[in-house]
Each structure stands twice: as C-alpha cells, then as structure tokens.
C-alpha cells in the first residue's frame, strides 16, 4: 500500500505542485489549506507523514504541531515543516516539539522530495 502524505499549506499553487510531484512518486496525497482542517485530516486520513506550512491564517503551523503533540494525534517526528521566514526561536520551538525536519521557503522541490523519502524510509 502506498504511503499517505498530508499537506497542510494555505498556498494552493505550491501545494498543487508538491502534490503533483509526490503523486508521480506513487504516494497518496491529501491537501488541506488551513490548520483546523489539517488537524481533522490528521485524525481521519491518518497520514504517514505531514508537510506543514508555518504561516497560515487562523491556526498556524506551530499551533498545529503543538496540538498534535498535546493531543497525541500522531508522532510529531513525522512532521516536516515549511516556513516562509527563518525565525530561529520558532524553529527551535518546533524541534523541541519533536518535528522531523524543517525547510525554509523558497525551497528546492527535489530537496523536499529527498527529505520526504528519507523520513518515510525510517518508518516501521
């Protein structure tokens, strides 16, 4: 069975291209454009990996990661964070929450795909 990836990003174009690339690799992709729907999809879709954008209106990426950790919705080490700006404190807080990896926008899509494959290969 193909691995399931959930993309939580309000930037629809970026998410569409990431989705396009990952589908070609054989992954099953689900996309949510806000944190609230993203949290619901984590419960329903039960993804193997989450790609989470930091900057979103409403519940932002950091809050999503905090809720995931607090409510034990999934292992936070299966979250890769995308962020539009490098904020050292924010990044540190995210790694304290146990996220797997962090990528700053603008990012290289090939780099993201490699990190996703590496993260998924470590899964049981």
């Amino acid at each position: 069975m193909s691995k399931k990836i959930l993309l939580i990003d309000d930037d629809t174009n970026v998410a569409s291209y990431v989705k396009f690339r990952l589908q070609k690799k054989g992954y099953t992709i689900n996309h949510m454009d806000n944190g609230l729907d993203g949290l619901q999809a984590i419960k329903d879709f039960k993804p193997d990996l989450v790609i989470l954008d930091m900057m979103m209106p409403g519940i932002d990426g950091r809050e999503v990661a905090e809720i995931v950790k607090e409510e034990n919705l999934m292992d936070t080490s299966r979250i890769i964070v995308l962020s539009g700006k490098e904020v050292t404190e924010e990044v540190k807080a995210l790694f304290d929450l146990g996220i797997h990896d962090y990528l700053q926008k603008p990012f290289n899509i090939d780099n993201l795909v490699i990190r996703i494959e590496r993260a998924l290969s470590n899964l049981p």
Partner: protein
Amino acid sequence: MNTMSPYFDTVAIDFIRITLYVLLVLFFSLVIFILVRRVLLKRWAEKMNKSEENIMPNLFLYLDGEITKQKFSDSLKNRFEVIAAFRNITELIDNFDGDQKDKLRSLLNLPQFNRYYTNSIRTDNTLKLAQACMYFEKKNIAERTVINRLKELQYHEYPVIKYASTLALINTSEQEVRDNALNVFIHSKGLASMAINDIIYKYCGFHKDSDRAAEILFRYITDPNVPVSNAASMVKMLPELGFYQMADDLAEFFRFPYQHDDKGFLTSSLIDALSDFSGVNVIDLVPEEKTWNSKHIPVRLSTAKWIQKFYSQDLDPILLRLAVDDDLEVRIIAQLALTQSPDAKNIDQQLDVKYQNEWDEILKTGDSYVDSV
C-alpha cells in the same frame, strides 16, 4: 383659513411627483449597475478560474521537463490565460528555488507576456498598470521605452503605482536608473512605511557598495525636502540593514533641531534606531523637551522604551514622571522599566493614587499585564 392658491398646490404636487420619479430612476439605475457589475465580476472570476485550470497542468508538466517551453507557450490562448499564468508563475517563483525557479523565470520572456504587459503599461487602468509594473520588476527590464514609462509612473496619483514602478526600476541593472528612482520615490508624499522599507531594502541589497548606500540613505534622512514620515521610516531601516557605521552621524543629527518634525515621528524613530545602535545615550544628548518631556506621545514612548532597555537608577526620576503620563502605553512601559529599580517596593508611595492599581498589576504580572492591556 387656507391661503394657498390651487395653482401652488398643483406645482407642489408636480414637484413631489417629479422628485419621486427621479429618485426611483436613480434607485433602479443603482440596482441595475450593482447587478451588472456583480455578474461581470462573477464571469471574470469564472474565466480566471477556468484559465488557471487550463494552464496549471501544463505549467507543472513544463517544470518537470515533460513538455517544452514552446509547448507551454502555445497553450496560452487568451489574455485570461496570460494573466492567470503570470500570477501563478510569480507566486511559484517566490516559493521555489533551484531548477524550478530558473525555469519559471525563463517563462517571463515569452512573447505573450511581453506583448500583453507592454500594452498594459501604456494604459490608464490602475490594475493593469500595477500588474505590468510587477511583470517588469520580475523580468528585470532593459528596454529604454519601458524604463521611461516607469519613470513617468513614479509620479502617478496612486501610491501603489508609485511603489510598483519604483520597484521595477530598482530591479534594473543600471545603478544610475536605481539612484534616480529612489530619489523620486523618497521625495513622494503619501507612501506607506512598508512600501518604503521594501524599496530601501531592495535598493541597498542591489547596491555594490554598502557604505555608499548608507551615505545615500543618510543624505535623504537629513534632507528637509523629504517628507518626515519617509525620513522616519528610513531611520528605522538603518539598524535592520546593519548600517552601524551611521551611529555617530545619526546621533549628531539627533542633537540638531529638525523643524519639519512637527509630530515627533522622526525624533521617535531616531531614539528607536539609536537604541538599536547601543551605547548612544539619548537622554544626555539633547534637552528634555526632545525626549522624556516632549509634547509628542511617540517621542515619550520611545524614550520610555530606551530607558527600559538601558536602565540605570539615575533615571528613576524621569521614569516616575513617565509612569504618570497621560498616555497609557507610555505609563505602562515606564512602570515596567521601574520594576528594575532597587527601590521598586517603595515606588507606589511616589505615584499618584489613581495610578497605583496599574503599578500593583505591573508588579504582580509584569509583561503579561502589558499584553492584556
């Protein structure tokens, strides 16, 4: 007894009738206008959505090398697709790096874009002008005619067009064009501080000689012909740009009067900037009227923040004055600064009764009280 003649009754009735007709016609015209506009906007949005649906798969295929640039170009059939493609390409350029970014950038040279936006920049339509400026900014224009048109647009009545045209000119490869563009922009009125920050940031980023860029900025900051709000925004940018070599010049400028700073924004920005260039004592540098005893709230607030950052017990008398300021924010910052005083427990005796509740809250909750306020 009724003194009105039947003639006047008839005229009055006719007048009321005509007024009602006119109002009815106006009302229905307005309703029709709103309905037509809504239909047109809906149709426009539908066409744009459909165009996006058409072009995005091809754009992704092109990015993955499955179709050629020519094939992508052939797929752009109408102006809606050109607009939608440009919008999405620029969004992706901002988010992606590496090969994808280079491939996306190369699409901007397609003749469809060039033709459409070269025509758009000649129109008077504000939206089209803004889009065309954005296109030429992303594309790094070289054509002289376009540069000349962008120079004209720097004097446009709308600040957004002034900003967009300046941004496009700043992105050119000629330093002289950039310098002139900055000069015109910075002397313009009604600019938002974010627009100034953006332009300054880009201008300095492109300048080969950062010392020279800092000197140019400082020249504009001290230029009395530059609107004071623009000068204040530029001052705030200096620490952000890392121009610490300007600290002495800035301190010197702070000491001299600037008559055009009639609301205190420039003085306040100078205190904030000097606070970032740590080591410059703003309190001792100028008379009290220009810092803690200023008639302008922003100046008193910046002074309170400066003291909070560089607290020393000698400044307690000033903080006690600011702690009972008419402005809530100034009071709170000053009281927060006073919590650093070794004498903090006895401060309440020196404050007016009406401010003692605030002081008690500050002592109990500190920063979280400020957040709640």
